[in-house]
């Protein structure tokens, strides 16, 4: 009996010691994580919560926020024609440039993968540079300049295709397509880098095993060996592509003006800026931000569940 009791207490003591050590280790972990966690919570989590809160109020910074229920959302969807135009434009840009940019990122990463080392390094720089080149895209406003000194207009006039210069960024017919070209030009970003790196990391012996098993051409190799190996990078690239394609505003604002003719280049984010920074209707702007947040998260979740099935 005594032996049993002493064993019991020994075990208890041991457990307590382990728990103490664990607590000490956790404390250390929390201390290391704390600086990042606090700043992250303040500038990334708290804003989302405040945004949701203000979206149910009327708030113009000067007066205290007044609770008005779902009124902001109802006005956005039922009465705000400009917002609906913004949603339409954003979805159009996202549906076209999102998947296309994503496919381009993968395709070019895959095609340059087998090039000799230094050519590949140069190719990565050429493809990636536009996305880190800040506002180099403003060069397109000179290239597509509305007068006869713009290259596109000069070329078309010289060849007799048009007789007077086209106002590329003022005519609603051309605004969005040109913006999409520019966005696609800039779309080989972080996702592209992840693909290049991921393709380099695939074990070569898998390909050799593939030849033995009768993989006939590069397409079969892509589907049966490369893509399944790239799944985590494909997920990462998809997140990058969706997030950037729904957040479009820089390019359209810089090229088409703000506000653009007939709101033809308005996006959800431009609308958000309009109400947030020009009209100071923070409650309304928060409702726009919350909707944008939901759209981005839902799209990401949907695409991720789709990508899980690649190569299976």
């Amino acid at each position: 009996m005594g032996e049993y009791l002493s064993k019991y207490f020994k075990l208890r003591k041991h457990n307590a010691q382990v728990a103490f050590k664990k607590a000490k280790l956790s404390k250390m972990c929390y201390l290391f994580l704390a600086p990042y966690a606090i700043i992250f919570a303040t500038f990334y989590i708290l804003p989302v919560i405040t945004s949701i809160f203000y979206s149910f109020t009327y708030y113009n910074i000067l007066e205290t926020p007044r609770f008005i229920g779902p009124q902001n959302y109802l006005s956005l969807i039922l009465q705000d024609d400009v917002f609906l135009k913004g949603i339409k434009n954003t979805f159009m840009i996202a549906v076209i440039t999102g998947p296309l940019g994503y496919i381009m990122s993968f395709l070019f990463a895959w095609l340059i993968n087998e090039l000799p080392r230094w050519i590949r390094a140069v190719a990565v720089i050429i493809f990636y540079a536009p996305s880190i080149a800040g506002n180099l895209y403003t060069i397109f406003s000179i290239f597509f300049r509305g007068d006869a000194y713009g290259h596109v207009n000069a070329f078309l006039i010289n060849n007799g295709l048009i007789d007077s210069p086209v106002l590329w960024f003022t005519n609603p017919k051309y605004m969005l397509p040109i913006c999409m070209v520019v966005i696609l030009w800039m779309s080989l970003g972080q996702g592209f880098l992840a693909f290049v790196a991921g393709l380099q990391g695939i074990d070569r012996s898998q390909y050799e095993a593939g030849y033995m098993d009768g993989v006939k051409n590069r397409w079969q190799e892509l589907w049966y060996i490369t893509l399944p190996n790239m799944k985590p990078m494909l997920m990462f690239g998809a997140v990058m592509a969706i997030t950037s394609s729904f957040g479009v505003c820089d390019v359209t604002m810089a090229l088409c003006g703000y506000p653009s003719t007939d709101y033809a280049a308005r996006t959800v984010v431009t609308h958000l800026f309009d109400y947030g920074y020009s009209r100071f209707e923070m409650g309304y702007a928060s409702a726009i931000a919350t909707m944008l947040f939901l759209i981005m998260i839902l799209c990401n979740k949907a695409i991720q569940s789709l990508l899980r099935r690649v190569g299976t």
Partner: protein
Amino acid sequence: MKKNEKEIKAPLIKKRHPNRSVGGDIGIYIFLLLVAIAMVFPLVYAINGALKPLDELFMFPPKVFARNPTLDNFSDLFVTMGKSWVPFSRYIFNTTFITAVGTAGHLLVASMGAFVLAKYEFPGGQVFFKLVQIALMFSYYVTAIPNYLIINKLGWIDTYWAIIIPAFAMPMGFFLMKQFMEGLPTSLIEAAKIDGANEWKVFMGIVMPNVKPAWLTMIIFSVQALWNNKAATYIYSEEKKTLVYALQQIQSGGIARTGQAQAVTIIVISVPILIFVFSESQILETMASSGLKD
């Protein structure tokens, strides 16, 4: 010995894939070449624009390449800069300060957090990482307005901190660092601990020197974000404005400044691109561990 290895390896690598057709290879090379030309064209066009004298900028028909390249636009730009109300070196200082402090802080703060998340298990750790992953999924614009209100509450409006402190917590760098650190062998850390090093020493002495590629990646993403930051909504005193903002003021100075505007663009974009060129291989090493697992 080493030479022998190379000799054996070299033919293996050079060997063509048995399942590739020559026609397909040639087609791909031509396709890639055309796309590369299209991708690089706007950059070449911008550089040539910056080198064109004024009469060539407004020539009909316009030419892509400058016929009499000159650096006049750049020297004119310096003259314009000299005339600004706030000395131009001040703008350069502002941007350099914001970029340097923001990047250094981001590197330290995010690496510390990433280290414990990657190497230890503790309650709440995985939940926190899930939150960071969700933060990757929405862009900066979603939080722009509440961020302004929060920074206003903190009293940081019109200070450098309004840009610097939020940059410390950029989710992208944190995410990449954590994924990269997971690849570090745990035995390395345990060995140091047996030798009596505490966590801080392990972090600074063992972990950080071993994740240099990830640093460079964090640095380029952070520099790119901060260097191009106009900060127009947070900073309104002229003497605290950033370089990009000041240069854009020059840019919007009308037709006569067209050449200078293009010179501005070239100067602004050269910094992030040069950093990328010099750190490409390390960045690619980091991106190899960027995958999202579920």
